[in-house]
Each structure stands twice: as C-alpha cells, then as structure tokens.
C-alpha cells in the first residue's frame, strides 16, 4: 500500500528535506545547515525538527542509515526525492506566476507593489 504523502510542505519541512540533498545528515547538522543557508532567517526549534523527521520517516521520505551512540543519521529515499522535486516545482510555479502577475500589472499600467 502506498504511504500517505504529507501534501504541501511548510517552509520548515521544505528546508529540512532540502538539507538532505547533499547526503545523509543527523538532526543537529540539519538545524545548523538551515540556519546557515538562510542567514538565520529560519531556525528550527528542536521539537519542530524532531516532529518533521518523525513524519518524514513515517511517510517514507527518509530512512535511518546509521546510529552512533545517540546520534542517528538519515538519508533521503526515492519517495523523499520525488516529494522534494514536486514541492520545488510547485514553488517554482509560484515564482513564475508571481512574475506573470507583475508583467500583467505593468501592461495594465499599474506598477507592481
């Protein structure tokens, strides 16, 4: 039975799945990477990160690859990669739509905000 998708991702979820694009990671590495990547704009609370990781594991986006002491490392699965691509495409479409609206507004004579 196919596992349930999480639907549209929140920003925290998207950045978390994005953090796995470069390879397997553990929880603390993910938080640090996201903070660095966004210049501190996005900071994941530990409860939020843990919930996201649990959900991703549950729906099969992630798989645990190693446990060293209390450090658990995860990697993206094919489903996870696909979910990331889908979300990325949706966001790209949003940007394209936003650009189209801006062009449309210029044509109509209204300056975009």
């Amino acid at each position, binding site marked *: 039975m196919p596992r349930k998708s999480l639907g549209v991702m929140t920003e925290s979820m998207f950045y978390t799945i994005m953090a796995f694009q470069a390879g397997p990671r553990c929880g603390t590495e993910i938080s640090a990477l996201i903070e660095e990547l966004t210049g501190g704009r996005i900071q994941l*609370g530990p409860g939020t990160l*843990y919930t996201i990781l649990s959900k991703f594991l549950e729906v099969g986006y992630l798989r645990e690859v190693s446990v060293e002491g209390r450090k658990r490392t995860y990697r993206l699965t094919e489903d996870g990669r696909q979910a990331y691509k889908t979300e990325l495409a949706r966001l790209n479409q949003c940007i394209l739509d936003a650009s189209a609206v801006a062009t449309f507004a210029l044509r109509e004579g209204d300056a975009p905000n």
Partner: protein
Amino acid sequence: MLWRLPPCPAYDVEGTESWLTDMAAQGWMLEKGSFLLGVASFEKAKPAAVRYRLEAAPKHASDWDDNGGSPGFEAVEMNADSGWEFVARRGQFYIYRSETGNSLELHTDPQVQALAIKTLQRRQIGNLCTTMSWGIIHSLLYFWKGFSLVLAAADEGPSIVLLTVLIPLWMAGSGIVQVVHLQKLKKKLKEGIPLDHRKGWRKGQSRFYGIRLLRILLIALWVVLVFHMWDKDITNFGKQERADYQGALPFATMSDFAEGVYEPTWRDLRYDYVMEWNNAILNRGIRWYEHAAVHCPDGSVLQGGLHVVYYDAASGWMAKALAFEYLRAERARARENYEPLKCPDFGLDEAVAYRNEFHFPCVILRKGNIVLHAMFFQTGSGEELPLAEWAGILAASLA
C-alpha cells in the same frame, strides 16, 4: 516538596504550560518524573522565569513501556542541545522546560506542531473507537445471553446498575471532549497561530476539580457496591433458612399445593433459602428456593423444588418492565430449549408459561405492581401436579 493536582486536563496544552510557568515564578519547579498517579510534585527553588512546553508523544506512551513512557533518546538529546530539559510525562504529553530565556522555542512552526497533535488525536480516536466497540459488543453479548439491566436493578439495587452504565458513558464522553479539544488546538496551529503559553488556567480550575472529584467518588462508590455484591454472593448474606423465616409470604408455596405431611428435602443455604430485600424500585423482593416433599393421605408424594422470585415493584410500569425482561432473559438463556406452554388466564394482568433452559415448567404472573416468577420441578415419577393447577394456586394467592 509540594504536591498539587493539575488545574486542567493533560490535553489542555496551553493551560498546563501556563500553570507550570506560574508555579516556577512562585519558586516551585516541577520535579523530574512528576505526575505520579496524575499528581504533580514540585521542589522549592528560586522564583524564576521558566518556560514549560508540552510535546505530543509521537507513539502511545505508558508507564508500562520499557523506558517508562519517556521520549526517545534522540528527542531528549536534540531538545537538550537547544536548552530544553525533559522533566516529566503527563498523559500523552512530554513536558520540557527551559530556564534560559534566550534559547530557541521548542516549536517554531505551528503547522508542524499541528501534525504532532493530529497524530495524537488520531490515536485517541482509535482508542476511543476500540473501547466503545468493545463496550457495545460486550453489552450486546450480555443482552443476547439474557442479562437484563432492569432485573439487575431490581435484584442488586438501581445504584450499582446506574453507575455501571454511567461510568463507561462518562469515560466515553471524556474521550470525546478530549478529541474535540485536540481538534480545536490542531485547527488553531494549522492556521499558523502559535499556542498561547500564558493562557489563564484559573478560570476552569474549580469546574475541573469538581468533575474530577465527582468521578473519583462515583468510581469509589461503584467499587464498594461491586465488592458488597460479590461479598453477599459468596457469604450467603441476606439468605436465611426457610424454617427460620418469620415474615408473611405474599404467595403460595409447596405446602399449599397439596395436603399432607410436609418434609423439607434439602437443607443447604446455597440452594434452599428465603431472602427478602427492597430498594428504590422495589417495595419488596423475595427469593424463595424450596425443596420438599408432601406426603399425601392417599399415599402419593408430591416432591420437587419450587423457586419463586417475587417483586412488588414501585409502580405498575416497573412491574410490566420486570415481567417483560424476565421473560426475555429466560428466553435468551434457554435459546432452543425454550418451549411456550399453554397457560390459563387466571384473571391476572399477565400470565405466561414455558419450559426454561433446564426444561422445567415456569410461569410469570403479573398483577398490578406484583410480578411473580415461579419454576416448579417435580422429582417424582412424572409431573403429578399439572402446571395449570400449581400456577392457579400461586395466581390465587397473589393479593
């Protein structure tokens, strides 16, 4: 050390967080591993601005788990690295606290927190449905096997029956309230609104304590009543030997069935006794278990057992319900052995005759507020005294 009952239920995340934060501000820090039997224990400390946060357990957490229902090591470590210390578990929520004001919030994305609440809510709905299904199946099974709440209320008193029904219903109702509360919480978080960590918890405090206390009292009362019922059963409480019975019986017995020398045949208080009681729905109840032989002048012997259950109900309506339920229960117990018998009218409100699960002839007679069930088995060569005759004597004896 200070012990306190929480002022709100475990699923009231905002209320619990606010209460614990206020306690810390007064110099009472929640003790590690607190909430033993639902009571919170605090240790004295310097009043401080401490943040408490609740996290929904991702899997069912219980004291019987290998780790005592604590969160996984990874979660504890991850949170500790960010300044959040795991303190205790209350119900299906883990309680963390941060004593440093500058540490990052435990939950930074309300919509993700909504997912955690959703997981918990689904689990609670599953548990509720399972419990309710079992409750319904068990009730139906008991009903199918001939158990009757009305008869139980008449025999054991309405209090124990009411509580037996009320307590599971109350628990189911509490479960529904919890699911609804979680739904509201989830909705709020899904809309991106963070939880209110400073919610006023005093408002519903008295109501919560009142409900909790009432529930504990009702459960305690139920336990006492069940124990008393069980004790009565094994100690033959209330039963007395028929020979010692001083009361006036309002119905005929075997000595009225035939003229002759009466001889009791079975002297065992478990099977040959008389018991009298009353309660809120019964003015008088009598259980008469008689085993005897009547040696008639013509040399014949009427020998057997007469089991009578007599109810003088508080109302005609109750008598009707008792008669109906008695017959239903007897039919349910007898199943294919149930055999309706022809019964004369006797001029009563109701008269039914049948053979029960043991194939013994029985009658149920109702007149006004009186209901009488009698089973008369004869152990002679056959059923010397026909049903119409002994049932007629019983019917005539009803005042």
